[in-house]
Structures are given as structure tokens and as C-alpha cells.
């Protein structure tokens, strides 16, 4: 591409024609002050701070909105430019409170910094300053709108990046104010980025509010355990306490954003439910113990099972937020004891294709390629809530008109992009509609359709969508989301997607929660003869080692998980938190470190391995899980547990980590039989609210107050609700055959008819089976 040369402050700089001046100066280290400009947002040119002198221009021009032209001569620090910049600064300050010492932004405030460089030491403004009322916009973002300088970064972020126009600028002139419409809360799952974008103390972090000053904090590089991107985070600490989390820019992964899940989950680290000392249950009563005692107790319990010949009935379950090293040591320990039953796929229930499954749950395209696909097909994916930052990438491609996105989802999810095709397919119709699509693809490609697929395809004619996918070819992507992975017929979905992608030439991305890919890489899954999560929870296990998980909440079928735990003889839980329900069945609780307190490796969905270092030392007796597992191995007398440090484990793993292949194709193609629900009537749809799927998230206080953590209510389509004789807001009795629960119902047109949606991850819903026939009726039994 041709370049032009411009002259800035006497320096000749190369630039691309049409590029904005401020991009060129930024790249070359020439500082121009600014407030409204942000490289990821559209140009507003409203703050007027970046005015510079351009030769032959009659007045100073904003560097953020002035395209470069060959031979342009620019002065950024001439008298004219400085006079303009100082003028703007004076205007910004006349109505801005000058109380930096009590402002939470103080010390990291662009306005404060630039006032030092461009402001006056006195004020000529003798009039009364403006004050603006602030409204509560939710538990994450604190507002103090008197400090607002109307740069509209937050408004543009919502409108352009997040895809939700939540903040706006109603009012005119001096009465213009940044607020939500009708004082509604901000519900975006990436709202915390507005805090970073706000150049003043108008929008600040509510959980972090007044906790520390920025200059007191130590920055630590970390990896978010909660998404499959391996989002780079800056864990900021003060006196060995995590005070907040900020993004670290990584253009390949998270750009400059992080989801609220990554930003606010740290609150769990300092929560009052932390388990800080080992605990053992003796004669039905819990007591605190030393590590020595607790580990001896744990080892003895396991040895007893091994001595009884029940070694194969000891299972290991790991949460998806574990590190690669933790996954590795858990499977190593379980296998060293003589069992092959270990799994990290807590929410999967169909394991029939384990023998042919791809080695890693990954995406065949890199993260950055999510924004330049021609066609994307979402299969059972509420990507906005499951992987918020990937949804932003998809949205970006959709916005530029490059990407057409189709979805086959059980529920009409509220996505932050438009869909070219939206197919609502609850229950097994997800499989049959997908099969119909495969049939259409076969038609478009003039390829024979496997008879197994034809047999289950429903009558939908999807030629238009099939053409879209086939035309995109290698630029097409099929995304398997959580609803697809958790489906009772997940193996059919994967097989059809595999066939479809092969036929159309598409790529596949399986977006598993958190660090799942590392679980697969560490082989933290059953070998031949071993039992998977589903088999372990089906009963018959004698002992469990739980790594960071609370099965009754983390697993798909909480009821089944709980009974499996209760029926076993000996349960060891490695956990950061004390859980009442776990304490009812567990025998040993070993306090483990959270993501910020422990070093470890994370494998993201594009096969990139990233290492995170502990930002703080854990409280009390808490130890990193890898150390606990190592010592437990020693106590059990297992071989190969003599690691000196984490590097030893990394070295051991290095043959595997060297080249993790990001492919997602089945080893051999086969279609299992469709499992029919065995009942007619209401179908229960389930899903994990984004802040309930993991113990750390469940203990993050502010996240638990957001709209994404709704109180457990049964959501039903309005028509179905009235057929059942219920009204929105009423209490209803939900019966799954042997358990009943009393819960409120709410009408929701996004739920398909003849279905009810009850989220998992809550104590209230955990006690209900998921595959059973359910019935719903008014509380007093009256109809109508």
C-alpha cells in the first residue's frame, strides 16, 4: 500500500493515506492530549482536547478526526496548538469538581494528568459549578456524574462494541448528561470496560470503590480461568490482597477488553466463605486439622478403599477452571491409585463418542479470525453469555457486514448481533433440525447424505442457510456452544456438525467452558475401562476426589450428583470455599488457592498455552492445589510425585504442550442412536447462568447481584403459561416425578412453547432431575 509523508513537529513520518493524524503520532511516540478518542471506538471529535495546528488550516484541527495528506505540516506544541489545548482544558475544568483527593479515579485520571500539563494554576470561573445527580446503574459500576466530561466513550462502547445502547446522552448543552435511559441498570456482560474507558471519576468500579489508590497497587500478569480465550488480566494487589482486576491488552486474544466475569470474580478471593484451614470429619462432626492430620486422614480413607479392592471405584472430578498442572496431577493421582475414572466434563451427559472424539475441545480458527468469518453457524450457543469476548468479535464481523450469523438454539437468546437465520430447536429438535441442515448442505453440494442423518432429519427446508454455509466454504465456522455439548444427544450433534463441516468445507469451534482444553490436554478424562462423569454420577463409586468442584451445583444433573456423593464412602474435596452442602457428604476438606493465588498454565481454544503466576500468597493454611495433590500422592506412596516446583510438572508435560493441534474432527465418523426423552409433555430446558457455573463465580458478591444472576424462577412461554392456568409472578409446583419444588413462574416469549426453562447452578434447582418428565401446576392445585 502506498504511503504518504507528513511532518509533525519537524519530524517526517510515514503514514497510510486517510489515516487519522492521532494514529500516526501515537505510533511514533508523539503525545497529543485527548479524552474522547479511543482506538477501538468511532471518532467523536467532541472533547476538542487534541486540537493541533495544521499548516494552511484556518483554525486548529482535531488530530483524532483529521486524515493525513501527503506533505501535511503539523505542529502539536506550537503556540496556536497549546493555546487551543489549554483553552479546552480550562473549559473542562470550570464545571469539574476539583476534589481529586476524594475521587476514586485520583492518581489514574487522564483529566488530572492532563490538567497538570495544560491547566491553569488558578481558576477564572467565578460562577457556581454544575452538579449532576447520579443514579444507581447496577452493582458493578459506580456513578458520580458531576465528574463527567461528556466524552461519550461509554455511550459509544455500549452502542458499538457491546451492542447494547444502555448509556446515552439525553439533554442538550450544559444540561446534557450521560445516563441510562429511564434510569435503568446497565446489564451488559462487558459493562466493566466502561470503567476503564471513562477518563474521569464518573464511572468507577463499585466493588473496588475507595479500596485503594492506584499508585499503591502492584500489577501482576494473570490469565482468566473463566473463559476459553485465556484472557490476559492484570491482577492488582495491595499488601497481599487482590484489590481489583484490569485487562491487559492482547490484540490476539482479548484486545483491550475483559468480561465482567473476569473483572469482578476476584471478589470471591476475599469472601467470608473462604476455607482457610484443612478440615476433617470425625464421627460425623467437622473439626479443623493440621495439614499433616488432614492429609493422613485423606490418605487413610483412600487406602482403605484401595485395600478393599475398590481402587477402581475411586473417581476424580475437576472443575473446568483448574490449571493444566492441577488437571495433570489429579489424573495422575487417580491413575496411580489404580482407577481410570477421572473427568473434567462436569456438564456433559452424552459420552458415547469418547472413543472417536477429537483430542482437544478447541477452535479450528484462531480467536482473531472470529471477526472475519463470512458465515457463522451457532449450534446450541448463547455465545454472548458463554464467551462474551468472542461474541464481541462476532459482532464486529457482523457490524462490518462481513459475517452472516445463523443460530440453531433451544432458546431465542438475546444476542448482541443480528442473525440471518434463527432456528429455535428445543430438546431433540436441535438434532433433527441440524440433520435437516446437513441434508440441505448435501443437496447444495450434490453429495450423498448418510442415511443415518436422513433418518433423523426433520422436514425443515434450509436450502438458503445451506447455500450461505457452502458459499463461505473455508471462511465458514460452526460453533458448538454449551447447550450442544450438554445435550443428551451431544454425540449426534458433534457427528452431524462434523459431517456438515466436511461437506461444506467449514471450520469447527467447540467452545468449552474455562480451561477445559487443558483438562483434555492433561488427559484428565477416563481411559478404557474408566468411568466418565455420567457413569461416575450414575452410582456405584466408593470414593471421590473433588478438585475445586461442588458437583451438586457444577454438574448438569445436580440431583444425581448429590446422590452419587452421598452414596460413596469417602469424599475428599479440594476447595477454596466452604460449602454447607458439600460438608454434608465430604470427609476431608483441603483448602486450595484460587486463580490469583496459584501459578499455573491455561490452554485456550486456539491451542495457545499461557502461564499465570500467583499474584498473592494465599490466606491461612491454604495451598495451591498442585501442591496438595503432590503431597497427597506422597502420602499415598505413589511414584512420581516428587516435584520440587511447578517447572518440574511443566517439564513432565512438555511433550504434550509443545504442539497442541487445534483441530476438532472426529477420528472416525459414526452416528449414535437418538436418545428419546421417553415422555411427552413439558420439556425442561436448563442452562447455567454465567455467574453460577463455578465456585469462584458463585462467591463473587457483586456478580451475584447482577441481572445475569436472576433469582431462580421458571420461565415459560406466555401461551404455555396460560394453558397451564398460571400467571406470571405466581408460585408453581414443579414435579420431576419424585421431587417437587415450589418456585415462581415468569412469562418469557423467548422460551419455546411446551418448554420450561429453569437455570441450574442454584440450590433451589439442583434438587430436580433434568431428563425426567416434568409437570408444572398452580400451587393450590386449582386449574385456571
Amino acid at each position, binding site marked *: 500500500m502506498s504511503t504518504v509523508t507528513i511532518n509533525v513537529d519537524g519530524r517526517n513520518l510515514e503514514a497510510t493515506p486517510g489515516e487519522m493524524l492521532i494514529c500516526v503520532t501515537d505510533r511514533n511516540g508523539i503525545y497529543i492530549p485527548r479524552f474522547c478518542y479511543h482506538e477501538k471506538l468511532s*471518532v*467523536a*471529535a*467532541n*472533547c*476538542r*482536547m487534541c*486540537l493541533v495546528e495544521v499548516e494552511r488550516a*484556518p*483554525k*486548529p484541527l*482535531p488530530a483524532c*478526526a483529521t*486524515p493525513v495528506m501527503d506533505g501535511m505540516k503539523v505542529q502539536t506544541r506550537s503556540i496556536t496548538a497549546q493555546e*487551543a489545548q489549554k*483553552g*479546552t482544558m*480550562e*473549559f*473542562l475544568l*470550570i*464545571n469539574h469538581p476539583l476534589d481529586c483527593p476524594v475521587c476514586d479515579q485520583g492518581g489514574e485520571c487522564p483529566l488530572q494528568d492532563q490538567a497538570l500539563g495544560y491547566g491553569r494554576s488558578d481558576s*477564572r*470561573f*467565578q*460562577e457556581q459549578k*454544575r452538579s449532576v445527580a447520579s443514579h444507581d446503574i447496577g452493582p458493578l459500576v459506580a456513578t458520580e456524574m458531576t465528574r463527567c*466530561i*461528556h466524552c461519550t466513550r461509554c455511550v459509544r462502547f455500549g452502542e458499538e462494541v457491546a451492542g447494547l445502547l444502555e448509556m446515552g*446522552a*439525553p*439533554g*442538550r*448543552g*450544559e*444540561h*446534557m448528561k450521560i445516563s441510562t435511559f429511564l434510569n435503568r441498570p446497565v446489564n451488559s456482560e462487558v459493562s466493566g470496560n466502561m470503567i476503564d474507558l471513562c477518563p474521569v471519576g464518573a464511572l468507577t468500579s463499585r466493588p473496588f470503590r475507595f479500596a485503594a489508590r492506584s499508585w499503591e497497587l502492584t500489577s501482576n500478569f494473570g490469565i482468566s480461568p473463566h473463559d476459553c480465550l485465556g484472557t490476559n488480566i492484570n491482577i492488582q494487589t495491595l499488601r497481599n490482597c487482590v484489590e481489583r482486576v484490569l485487562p491487559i491488552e492482547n490484540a490476539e486474544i482479548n484486545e483491550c477488553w475483559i468480561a465482567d466475569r473476569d473483572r469482578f470474580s476476584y471478589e470471591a478471593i476475599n469472601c467470608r466463605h473462604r476455607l482457610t484451614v484443612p478440615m476433617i470429619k470425625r464421627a460425623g462432626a467437622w473439626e479443623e486439622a493440621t495439614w499433616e492430620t488432614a492429609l493422613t486422614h485423606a490418605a487413610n480413607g483412600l487406602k482403605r478403599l484401595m485395600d478393599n479392592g475398590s481402587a477402581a471405584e475411586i473417581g476424580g472430578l475437576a472443575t473446568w477452571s483448574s490449571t493444566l498442572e492441577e488437571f495433570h496431577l489429579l489424573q495422575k493421582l487417580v491413575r496411580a491409585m489404580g482407577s481410570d475414572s477421572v473427568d473434567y466434563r462436569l456438564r456433559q451427559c452424552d459420552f458415547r463418542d469418547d472413543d472417536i472424539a477429537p483430542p482437544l475441545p478447541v477452535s479450528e480458527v484462531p480467536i482473531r479470525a472470529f471477526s472475519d468469518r463470512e458465515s457463522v453457524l451457532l449450534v446450541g450457543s448463547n455465545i454472548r453469555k458463554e464467551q462474551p469476548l468472542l461474541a464481541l468479535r462476532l459482532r464486529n464481523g457482523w457490524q462490518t457486514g462481513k459475517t452472516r450469523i445463523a443460530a440453531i438454539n433451544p432458546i431465542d437468546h438475546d444476542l448482541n448481533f443480528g442473525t440471518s437465520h434463527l432456528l429455535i430447536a428445543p430438546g431433540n429438535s436441535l438434532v433433527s433440525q441440524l440433520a435437516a441442515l446437513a441434508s440441505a448442505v448435501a443437496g447444495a453440494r450434490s453429495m450423498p447424505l448418510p442415511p443415518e442423518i436422513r433418518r433423523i432429519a426433520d422436514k425443515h427446508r434450509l436450502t438458503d442457510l445451506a447455500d450461505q454455509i457452502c458459499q463461505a466454504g473455508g471462511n465458514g465456522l460452526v460453533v458448538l456452544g454449551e447447550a450442544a455439548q450438554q445435550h443428551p444427544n451431544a454425540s449426534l450433534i458433534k457427528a452431524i456438525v462434523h459431517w456438515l463441516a466436511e461437506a461444506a468445507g467449514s471450520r469447527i469451534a467447540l467452545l468449552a467452558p474455562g480451561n477445559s482444553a487443558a483438562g483434555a490436554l492433561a488427559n484428565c478424562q477416563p481411559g478404557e475401562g474408566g468411568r466418565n462423569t455420567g457413569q461416575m454420577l450414575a452410582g456405584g463409586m466408593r470414593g471421590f476426589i473433588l478438585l475445586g468442584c461442588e458437583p451438586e451445583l457444577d454438574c448438569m444433573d445436580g440431583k444425581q450428583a448429590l446422590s452419587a456423593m452421598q452414596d460413596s464412602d469417602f469424599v475428599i474435596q479440594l476447595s477454596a470455599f466452604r460449602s454447607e452442602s458439600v460438608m454434608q457428604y465430604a470427609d476431608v476438606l483441603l483448602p486450595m488457592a484460587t486463580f490469583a493465588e496459584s501459578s499455573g498454565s491455561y490452554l485456550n481454544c486456539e491451542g495457545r498455552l499461557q502461564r499465570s503466576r500467583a499474584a498473592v500468597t494465599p490466606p491461612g493454611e491454604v495451598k495451591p492445589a498442585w501442591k496438595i495433590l503432590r503431597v497427597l500422592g506422597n502420602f499415598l506412596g505413589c511414584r512420581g510425585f516428587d516435584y520440587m516446583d511447578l517447572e518440574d510438572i511443566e517439564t513432565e508435560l512438555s511433550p504434550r504442550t509443545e504442539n497442541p493441534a487445534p483441530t476438532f474432527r472426529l477420528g472416525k465418523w459414526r452416528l449414535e442412536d437418538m436418545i428419546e426423552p421417553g415422555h411427552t409433555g413439558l420439556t425442561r430446558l436448563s442452562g447455567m447462568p454465567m455467574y453460577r457455573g463455578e465456585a469462584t463465580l458463585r462467591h463473587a458478591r457483586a456478580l451475584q447481584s447482577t441481572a445475569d444472576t436472576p433469582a431462580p424462577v421458571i420461565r415459560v412461554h406466555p401461551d404455555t403459561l396460560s394453558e397451564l392456568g398460571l400467571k406470571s409472578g405466581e408460585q408453581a409446583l414443579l414435579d420431576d416425578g419424585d421431587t417437587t419444588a415450589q418456585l415462581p413462574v415468569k412469562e418469557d416469549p423467548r422460551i419455546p412453547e411446551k418448554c420450561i426453562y429453569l437455570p441450574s447452578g442454584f440450590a433451589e434447582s439442583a434438587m430436580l432431575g433434568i431428563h425426567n418428565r416434568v409437570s408444572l401446576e398452580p400451587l393450590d392445585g386449582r386449574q385456571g
Partner: protein
Amino acid sequence: MSRQRDRSLIAERFGTVRQAASVCLPDPSVKTPWKLETYRAGGGYTALEKVLSGQIPHADIIETLKLSNLRGRGGAGFPVGVKWSFMPRSSDVQKYVVCNSDEGEPGTCKDRDIMRLNPHALIEGMAIGGYVMGATIGYNYIRGEFREPYDVMEEAVREAREAGFLGKNVCRSGFDFDLHNCLGAGAYICGEETALLNSLEGKKGEPRFKPPFPAAYGLYGKPTTINNTESYASVPAILRADGNWLDGQWFRGLGVENSGGVKIFSVTGHVNRPGNYEIRMGTPFRDLLDMAGGVWKGRRLKAVIPGGSSVPVMPAESILKANMDYDSLQQHGSAVGAGSVIVMDETTDMVGILERIALFYYEESCGQCTPCREGTGWLYRIIRRINSGRGSMEDLDTLLDVANRIEGRTICALGDAAAWPVQSFLRHFRHEFEDKIAMDRANAA
């Protein structure tokens, strides 16, 4: 009926005087000039018919407009023919013509009377514009307070559509053009062309940063030309050229060098006969003042704002030497603007006038750019303080400095419009401000 009578009465009483030729304002002797039949009887829509007959190349129409020296009547004075030539002729995308009838400039009331009395001239002008520029849809954005002109326009559009001058296949030429009237919601800033586009799109009326200009990225991102009501309404008469079809010289000759034709000046303030005066460009101000019956109550002239509150004020000795055209007013330190001549007699309190003007811009700033959002309020508050007897001499320097720091630093010209009155009032009448401050100080002591 009563409304029609009122309108005629106003046309007579409100000094709607034509000096040279009937271009935008109808002859006051004509009854019901807003009716289609009346308009047609006077040669209306012949220009559109002729243009649509296909005999005339588009370029000739633009050349005629260029030659006629018709300059944009909204305030900036950009040549209309040149503006029309900016529209990409060849491209297949949807294009729009938009009429700016958001007449909000204090002192201006010409577009209101064009719409009330001569709506078909506007419709014909826009249809011709649509044809020349390849736009099939026109929007007429009418100031929110103009309910009555809006109703007249709606009726006229209905008549024109029924008669085949709007809609599909206009005049059976195969050309489609439809026109929609939109009523604003009372924001002065929506008279700024890009804010107007935002408002039309249903967004907040905030000016857009230019470039891109509307001819490249306008309404809904499509090529768009925006002209003032008077500019469009002048087009049919210019093309008819009083019988000398397409003779741009006719209109040009009505005016002077660089300022073609006739233009409406809305004379308000301390005159005996305020009203709209459609006069030759280059007419001496003295003559216009005479037409308006001279300064009222036999008083002497103190100052005139010749183009609406946004242009600099001129003291009597300066305006009395000036002619009403672009060059002459500029030479004397002001501008034609929207042609709203605000006349002030010798008793006028200049501090009070500036306070009122400053209040206007403070209220009407959209709030987007820092200097205007913060500065207009600051200007107003200082002037209010001075006017209420709590000013100091330093305030005058601050006032000027604040105005200088707003001027030229904002996205649109509202910042300039807020600064210029302050600068010009202090340039010409600083002594009145100083006297007021000194007197208040003395009284306080």
C-alpha cells in the same frame, strides 16, 4: 377560511414587499397564492415540466444556477449550483434532497412566509433538485414551532401529488420523486445541516464532524444535498428567467457582483414596518430601512445586526454605509447570514441585548463539544452578572477571552455564532459595558 384570510392579511400588513421580481414571495395582490391553481396560473410548475421533458441536460441546469449567482440563503452563502454539482451523478445508490426549513435564527421569518404563502415554489424547486441530482426522495425539515406552515406544506404536497407533480412518474416523465414534510422538536441546532440529518434519522440532533460531507455521506449514509427553503424556492423562477428560459443572467442581473438576484430580508426590531422584504441584492441599507418605514418613534439608529443574531453587530455609522449584499456587509465587518435585519434604536441597552443573545446560545448548544457546552454557559453567566450589577472590568477581558477560545474550536458553527456577538458587541460598544460596570460599582460604594 379564517386561517386563509389571516394569511392574506398578514401578507399585506406584514410589509411583504417585493422590489424587483417575484421569486420567492408572491405578489401581495394575488389571493390565495398557496393554492396550486393560483401558483400554476402564474406559471408555476412550468419549469419542472420543461426540465422533466428531457430536452435539457442536467449540466445546463447546474450551469444556469452557477451563472445566476444564487448563493445559499441559509446563512453560509455557498453557491447553489456548485453544491448541486458535488452530488455523484453516476452512482446507483439512493440519494436524497433535503430542505432546511428549520428556520431558527433569531430575527428570521422568511422561510416561514415562503412555506405559508408560496409552498409550491419550494416543492417545484425541490423536485427540480431531485431530478438534477438523481434523488427520488426529498425531505422538508420544518422547525418544530412552525405548525401552521407545516399544515400548509402538507396540503400543498397533497395537491402536488394529486396533480402528478410528486410521486411516481412525475409529469409522466418516468421520473419518481416524492416529498415528505417533517416537523422538528424545537432545537435550534437542528438547523445545522448534519444535526438536521441526525434528527431526520430519529437520532439526537447533534452535528456530525465533517468531512465526510453530506454529498458523500448524508442522510442514512447516502449522498444528500441540503439547501435552505429560499434557495430551493428561488430555483423555478431562475430557470424561467422571466420568459428567457434558462438565462442565468436574468437573476444575476437583479443583484450585484458576487451576490446574484433578489433576497428576502426579514426586518425586525425598532422600525415602523417590520416585515419580509424581497429586494435586489446590493440595495443600500438606507433604502431597506426606508421601506421598513424608518426607525420608529423618530429615534436615531444605534446599531443593526444584519443577518441574524449569529453575525457581528454593526454600529449605525457602519451599516448606513453598507449595501445589502455579501461583499459589502463583509467589508463592513459583518455578514448577510440568514438575512435577518435586527434594527436597534438609540435607547437600546446593549448589555441587555447581549445577555439575551448569550442566553439563546447557552440554551441551544447541543452540548457535544467542550468549548461550546461549557463556554456558552460561562459567557451567559458573566454577562448576566454584569447586567445585574455585579460585574468587574476584568470580566470584560475574561468574556472576550472565553469567546476567543470558543471560536473556531468546535465541530459546527454554533460555537462561532455564540462568540461573534460577544466579540462584536465588545468591539463596538465596550464603553457601554464599562459605563454600566463603573456605575454599578459607584452605586454599590
